[in-house]
């Protein structure tokens, strides 16, 4: 028996609206990560999949399932997908749109559903070797790109960034097979040294809350966890450092800080200890605090243990201030436990926390008051992931150019002495034509030969480069562009 026509019409309308929302959220995620868009994307696809199954639209259900797989791969990569992948997702949406619109009861006609599914499967096979065998969790995977183990350290990344700029310029200016070959090189470099965006928030860190409660139960302690990690767009490196920090600091707080119920009661405290995790973006970067209302750091034990471990002499230990003792606690091999147990004692933890933070230019500080508790504060500078600029097109240059927003576009006035023909400067053509458009910053000014006036816009940084480089590669929507540093030309 067929479905009532009214129900089918209603489903069609709702499904088309869902597809619009999915398309919009997908486009948004490629521009800037947002937990809201990610949530809409996954929720709408999942709901459409469920609705189509219930109403017997097996073809839509199947494509929805494949789309869910595609989005899952994209999510695991922090939505940093290439144009081919983007194209496939868009085609899947259009394909579903076509299936939704086709007449009730009509045959598939020229629609090759199995062929389409095979094409998606092929893309999935190529795109997710690293995810093979992993099953969908259905709810919240980390909103981050997989951290690739072959990524290079930050110092080397800085040295490779100008090479990436050159590779991009060569690729974007090439034709035919040369272009295809160079595109592969550019994409490899971008993968290795590009800024990998990630969203830090409850979705990523909530596992530490349940971990803390579970540990407290094991240790016979009563615990309340206040979890307010904030939400911010960071890089995968920052997220990884925060993840490690929260893991160790929360475990330390539960293991060393929070007392057993009887001890808390004797100290006049509520029997249920409290650990609070708070975070958020500040001017100096992402700041996260992990605090507890436990016994505080037992500095006398730290002193004696440092002496036992040969880190300081007994005489020196007596004179050490709290800051220096905390510093010792963060050194490799330090633990106040004389024997390791399943929870701690191996001296691995705080040193891992600090190493991860310091490598990113951050700091780890602690403040502890006897019998009141300890607060650890992590501050990690977060690279700017988007910048404002002026988008221009110059003849002879086959990619958009962006002038850093610290320069003003100036109209009128005398022409500056320095007029840049960017096609010649980059060696990508025989020279730019067009009109000179003027930019000024402080007492500096220059003009660039452009086809049309510059337009202001926000661009996403793809590969950060040091200020000494000619520029860096950015993205305007999904289009790669060269952000120029005019003073380096």
């Amino acid at each position, binding site marked *: 028996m067929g479905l009532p026509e009214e129900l089918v019409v209603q489903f069609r309308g709702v499904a088309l609206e869902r597809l619009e929302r999915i398309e919009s959220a997908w486009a948004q995620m490629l521009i800037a990560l947002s937990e809201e868009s990610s949530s809409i994307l996954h929720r709408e696809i999942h709901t459409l999949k469920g609705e189509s199954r219930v109403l017997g639209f097996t073809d839509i259900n199947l494509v929805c399932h494949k789309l869910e797989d595609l989005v899952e791969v994209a999510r695991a990569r922090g939505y940093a997908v290439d*144009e*081919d992948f*983007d*194209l*496939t*997702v*868009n*085609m899947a949406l*259009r*394909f579903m*749109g*076509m299936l939704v*619109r086709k007449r009730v009861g009509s045959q598939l*006609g*020229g*629609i*090759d*559903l199995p*062929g*389409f599914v095979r*094409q998606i499967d*092929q*893309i999935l096979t190529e795109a997710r070797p690293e995810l093979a065998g992993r099953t969908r969790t259905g709810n919240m995977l980390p909103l981050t790109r997989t951290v690739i183990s072959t990524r290079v350290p930050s110092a080397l990344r800085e040295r490779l960034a100008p090479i990436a700029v050159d590779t991009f310029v060569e690729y974007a200016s090439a*034709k*035919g*097979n040369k*272009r*295809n070959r160079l595109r592969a090189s550019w994409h490899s470099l971008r993968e290795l040294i590009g800024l990998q965006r990630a969203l830090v928030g409850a979705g990523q860190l909530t596992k530490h809350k349940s971990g803390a409660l579970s540990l407290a139960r094991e240790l016979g302690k009563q615990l309340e966890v206040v979890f307010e990690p904030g939400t911010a767009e960071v890089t995968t490196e920052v997220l990884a450092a925060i993840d490690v920090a929260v893991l160790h600091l929360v475990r330390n707080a539960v293991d060393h800080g929070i007392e057993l119920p009887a001890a808390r009661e004797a100290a006049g405290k509520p029997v249920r200890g409290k650990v609070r995790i708070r975070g958020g973006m500040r001017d100096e970067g992402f700041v996260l605090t992990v605090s507890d209302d436990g016994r505080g750091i037992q500095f006398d034990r730290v002193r004696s243990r440092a002496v036992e471990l040969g880190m300081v002499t007994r005489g020196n230990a007596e004179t050490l201030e709290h800051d220096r003792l905390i510093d010792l606690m963060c050194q490799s091999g330090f633990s106040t436990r004389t024997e390791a147990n399943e929870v701690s004692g191996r001296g691995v933890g705080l040193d891992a926390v600090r190493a991860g933070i310091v490598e990113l230019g951050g700091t780890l500080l602690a403040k502890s008051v006897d019998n009141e508790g300890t607060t650890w504060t992590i501050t990690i500078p977060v690279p700017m992931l988007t910048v404002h600029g002026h988008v221009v*097109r110059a*003849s002879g*240059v*086959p*990619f*958009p150019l962006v002038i850093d927003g610290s320069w003003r576009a100036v109209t009128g006035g005398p022409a500056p002495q320095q007029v840049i023909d960017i096609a010649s400067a980059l060696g990508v053509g025989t020279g730019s034509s067009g009109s000179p458009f003027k930019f000024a910053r402080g007492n500096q000014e220059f003009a660039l030969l452009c*086809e049309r006036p510059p337009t202001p816009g926000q661009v996403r940084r793809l590969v950060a480069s040091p200020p000494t480089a000619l520029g860096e590669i950015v993205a305007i*929507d*999904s*289009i790669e562009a060269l952000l120029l540093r005019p003073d380096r030309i």
Partner: protein
Amino acid sequence: MGATAEELSIRELDFAAEVHAGDPTELRLVGSADSVIADSLGILFGKLHQALDASKARAIVIDMRSLEFMNASAFNALVTWLGLVNEMPPERRYQFRFRSNPDIMWQRRSLRTLSCFATDLITVET
């Protein structure tokens, strides 16, 4: 065809779309089609569709051999055009004959996927 070839052309810095009247009409796409020209491309395809429908055309040849890349926004314009034809009565539909470059990976993949939308309307020549 009502519209002139000049009216049905796009010339951008790194992209060109040229219509050559004939039997069948031929559309040549050259360069790299990105979001910047996706709107213009959508308008061009709409006008071309009207012209082909009015002239009772049986086919359109789309020469992509020199098309380096087409991003999702631009490709969506193509899918929308195909949708317009697909929704016409069968007797008014015309064929899409793509001329592709087999050395360009994205063309192989995308045209194969596109043909799944309407196997009865699309042929891909290499």
